[in-house]
Every structure is written in structure tokens, then in C-alpha cells.
């Protein structure tokens, strides 16, 4: 079994047994969590010292070069599992986040809010 297949298999087993699959997410709670945990880097407001975007938003602008929105709250493709992957594994200069910082239920709620905010209900 390849490493990727092994990892994906493990992930699917994990998802099946967690809050991602078990409970209805709360967009209201997800919005609050987004504001506290995601927005400081991935929000739409300006940064300082002449930078038009916050670091995370700017990084995604450079990464996707227009093929996807730079701001997370405008993304229609961030399923709970995709978001879980980025949060738990880290990507680029974004480090992974621990369960003690964001629970699986927290991630599901944030994904629900992003879906609602982006019109991808």
C-alpha cells in the first residue's frame, strides 16, 4: 500500500468515527471560531506596512494565482475533510493545529460557516 493510500485510509477511518460525521455542525459557532482562529491570518482585512492582504490570504493568492479565491470565506471547495486535512497536517508555512487548539467538531463548524459564507450551503 502506498503512503498516500495508507494515509487516506487512516483518514477515512478517523472521519467515520468523529464529530465530522456524527453531529450537525453549527455555523454560528463556526463563525466565532473562524474569527478567533482563522481570520487573523486568512481574513479579508488589510495587513500592515503596505500589505493589502493578511499573510495567509496573500499566500493563497500567490499559490492559486486566481484559480481559487485567496480568502477562505469565499472558498466553495473546502469540505470538512479537506479543511481537516489542512488544519491537522499543516500546509506550506501554516503549521498543523492540535486537538487541544481546535477539536474535530470545531473544524466541522468552521467548514460549515465557510460553506455558508461562500454561498455553498
Amino acid at each position: 500500500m502506498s503512503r498516500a493510500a495508507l494515509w487516506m485510509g487512516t483518514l477515512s477511518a478517523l472521519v467515520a468515527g468523529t464529530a465530522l460525521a456524527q453531529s450537525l455542525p453549527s455555523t454560528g459557532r463556526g463563525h466565532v471560531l473562524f474569527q478567533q482562529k482563522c481570520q487573523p491570518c486568512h481574513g479579508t482585512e488589510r495587513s500592515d506596512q503596505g500589505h493589502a492582504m493578511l499573510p495567509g490570504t496573500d499566500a493563497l493568492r500567490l499559490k492559486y494565482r486566481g484559480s481559487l479565491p485567496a480568502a477562505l470565506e469565499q472558498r466553495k471547495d473546502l469540505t470538512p475533510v479537506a479543511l481537516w486535512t489542512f488544519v491537522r497536517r499543516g500546509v506550506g508555512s501554516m503549521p498543523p493545529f492540535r486537538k487541544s487548539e481546535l477539536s474535530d467538531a470545531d473544524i466541522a463548524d468552521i467548514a460549515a460557516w465557510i460553506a455558508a459564507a461562500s454561498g455553498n450551503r
Partner: protein
Amino acid sequence: MITRRELLGTSLAAAAAPVTAAQATAGDALSTTRILPPGVSSAAFDTALHEFEAAIGPDWVLSSEEDIHPYRDHFSMLKDQPDELRPSAAVCPATVEQVQAVVRIANRHRIPLYAISTGKNFAYGGPAPNLRGSVVVDLKRMNRILEVDEKRHTALVEPGVSYMDFYRHLQEHDLKVWVDTADVGWGGLMGNALERGCGYTMGPYRDHFSAHCGMEIVLPNGELMRTGMGALPGSRAWQDYKHGFGPDPSGLFAQGNFGIVVKMGFRLMPRPEHWRTGLITVPRRRDFIALVDTVNYLTDLFVIGEPLYSSPLTQLLGDGTFRKAAVDFDEATMDRIAAERKIHSWQVELQFYGSERTTLANWEWAQELIRRAVPDANCFDGESLKVPVTQAQIEENTRPYPAPYVSVMRRNVMHGVPKLYMWRSPGRTENDPDTWNETHIGLFSVIGRSAEAVFQAQKDFADVARKARAGTEYVSSLLAPLNWHQSCFLIGNSFFGTTTRNDNSPQGKIRQLKELQGILKLNAQAGYGDYRAPPILQDDVADQYSFNNHILRRFNETLKDAVDPNGILSPGRGGVWPKAHRKMRGRIRR
């Protein structure tokens, strides 16, 4: 069997989804080999994990690869190498009693622990331990702000409180105090202070460990101890007087491994009414002596917050004649070209906290002082803002000074407002959009707080760079000091890695590590020591402090063996290795 596409969801953009998923998992290959604490059998480790579960609940004992992956050092130079400093498990207690239980269990089974608070110290190691196989004690769930007193300007917090959490609390309760924040606001008050982090406001507050006042600590045997007035039952002055009576061991817990700090008090800066800035420039290279002397005087009279030094002459490095003079420390030529181009050699941005009138009076006094010493110095008014400033004022990009002088002041940290603006530094850039900084690069040497010491360090670091074969021309004569800690200067010294800096291959990262280890050794030979380091380099930095055959380390390790005979608490942290694991000293890629 679930397909990858199904797993990622049908709404994922068809082209983007495989790319993003692959990128998310690239470089962190799943390990199928169980990592164990050194000298602990798999069966004994299982027993310990079951006991941890009984003590703090099964949900908060994490040992699967998925769960402990975020406890790896995301920026390790040994990422995915067999000797990467990876934990074996993590436990997340929610109370002091649970921390005590974890420590007692670890003692019974000789399990090395590694305590983290918010775990966001990414410039210096993140949540990963000094000793591979340690169990991380993640204190993030202990996140209560126990007290903020806006009249005495004090706070008492638990380990998991981040600067952002704390700032939100101040805002929600309209408390008129500031906390001096680290650059990246997801870090925590306690963890940053215990790492001897620093900030940007007035001197007593921006040395974060010095601003602490009172700790509660779980000792290696599980007992609970308080420092300062906290040692006196019934005292109501725990956050008012840090020393208590008799020897004060507080310093042992900063960059140390003598206990797990579970509460920490802090002195807070009262919110001023007004903030004012000004810029002073001096024309000649040697005028830096009078400039630093003047600023030191104002600093130690507590008239100014952090001063920001820089050299406007960096703008001339494209001029071949000037560049050669700068490389050769040819001061006469540097001064001549600077005069011809009408650019002053040095600048310092000053900031004043107080009322509108007192900040103006102090700024006028600063101008008077520098003109007494350097009559042809320039002084430019900067900002004059009522406090608290607005979000728009923090983001404001108007440069208050006439060209060629520019402000490098970042307003959020000057006002105790935690942000993640600085997280831009490890990320993608317009010029290099497909890569990011994958390794630790932040190393800073302590320099005496005078211009003469800076001039000497510039020459010494040029020698170090030559010996380290940096491979590219190194201009150090324009290096300006940082005055993060009030009493000393710091100068960054990891930029020597120019030959390997952009090579993020596994071999390139190892070359970076070896290059930094070599630089640390050369720095020590020249008389310079660093003030912080990630675990991967802590033995190298501890080696710098070798007076009298390493008596400081031998003293610390004598204490360590006495209070932690099983060597369970953060072995190796700060270069202090307990007897049980002392053979691991210096084993990282020598």
C-alpha cells in the same frame, strides 16, 4: 472502499483538489514505526498510556500518528529524518491536579515528558521535544485568565492563554492595561516569557520574563510550589512582589526543565493616553556612538519605548564603490559618499508613551540631547496619536518621514495589539511564489549596548562569515542592533546561511543545520552567545556558555539530578540533561 475524490468531497474544484491534498500531505510521510521513549518497552509504554487515560480521560491521551503529527516541529531541519525530534505521545491535562497525576505516572514508568503551553513557539522549535520519544504535556486546555487588575496593573494566567485570548479579554472588559505582545500573537504569555521572549513597548514590560511576577509550578515529584509572595499562605500580594524571601528559584524555570509552570503572574503596562514617534538621523558613521549614548540615557530614564535603529545607507549598496567601502569597513569613503548623496549614516525611531503634552516635551528633550552631541543631526516629527488607536491607524501605511528615510515601526506591537502580520516572513513572496521558509532561521547574539560594541561585532561577524564560507559577499558594516531587551543589543546571525538558505531538500536542510552549528561555535570563539535557540540547537548554544569548564551547566545539572532524579521533565531543554539521558547531549547531527 472510499475513493480519494469522495473523501475530499465532490464540491472540491476538480483541478485544484488533488493538488491541494497532495501538497497538504507532501513531506510528512506517515510513519508506521511506533516511536517509544528511550529505554521504555512497548508494553511498559502501553501501561503508562492507560494510566494517563485513567488520570485525564481517554480523549486527551493522544498516541495515533494522526493525533501526534501536529506535535512535530513543522520547521525542523531534520523533518522526516530518523533522528527528527518527534514525540511518542501527547497528553492534554485540564487542571493542575491532572498535571500532577501525569508527572507521578511518568515518574513511575520513567517516561520523559516535554511541557508546552500554547505550542506556538515556531521560531524556536514549536511543540516538539528536545528528546525524541518524549510525551508532550500539552497545557493548551488550561486557558483561564484568572485575574486582571487594572489598578495594580497585574494579571494571573494559565499556560494556554494566548496573547490574542488575553487581548480579547482586555477589549471585552474595557480594561485599561496593555500586555507587551510577541510578534506573532497566537503565542502565549507564559510560554513566551519562559522562553525569554521580548516585545516592543517600555523596557520593563518588553523583557517578558522580567515582567513576570509569581509562578505556580508542578515539581518533578508532583508537588506544587509557588514562588514569590505566593509561598506565603493568604498573601494578597502575589503579583505585586516577585521575590518573596530567601533564594528565589524563578529563573530556573525559564528555558529550564525543573518543573511545569501552571500559573504565572505578570506586570502589565498601564494604557497611556497618547503615543508619539520621532526620527533622529546622524550624518557620519562614528556619530552612532553619540546616538546610542543618547538613546541609552532616555531608555534607562524610562522616557522612551523600544528604539528602532537602522542604517539608511543600505540604499547605497547598489553603488559598487560604496559597497566595496562597506565590505572593507572603509569609513572615510563611506562617509564621503553618504555626504555626497545627502544620506545620513544612521537613524533611530523613538516612541513616547504618556499624555499629549508629556510625549511632546520628551520628544523635544530628545532632540535637544542629540543636537548637543551631534549638532548636524536631523530630527523629524513622526506620528502623534491618541490612544487607543484604531484598527485603521494600525494598518496605516503613511510614511511620516521625508525620503530617503523610512519608518520600519510596526504599530500593532507598539500598542500591545497581537496580530499575525509577521507570519508573512516564512511564507511565499511575490518574487518566489512557489516556496516558503521550511526551517528555523532565527538566531540572535547578545551584544553590549554601545556603538563601540556594535562596530566590533560587525567586524567579528564578518570574520565568522568568512570562516563559515558563506559563499557570498557579506556586508556587515551596516548591521543595526535590536534593542528588544532594554539592557542589551541583539544582532541576528543566522543570515550566514546564504549558500544553503533556499535549498529545502532534506540534504539542504541538514547542511543548514550544520552550517548554523558551525557559526554558533565560531561566534562563541569570538565571544558571542545566543539568547534563544530551537531544541535542535540548544546543546550548541549551551556549549557557548563554557566559563570554567562549563560550571554553569554542571551546577544546573547538579540541581537537576537532585530535584528530578528520574530525569523525566523535558530532558535536554536549555542544554540541561539529567543523568538518565545525559549521554544524549550533543547527539544531534554532529
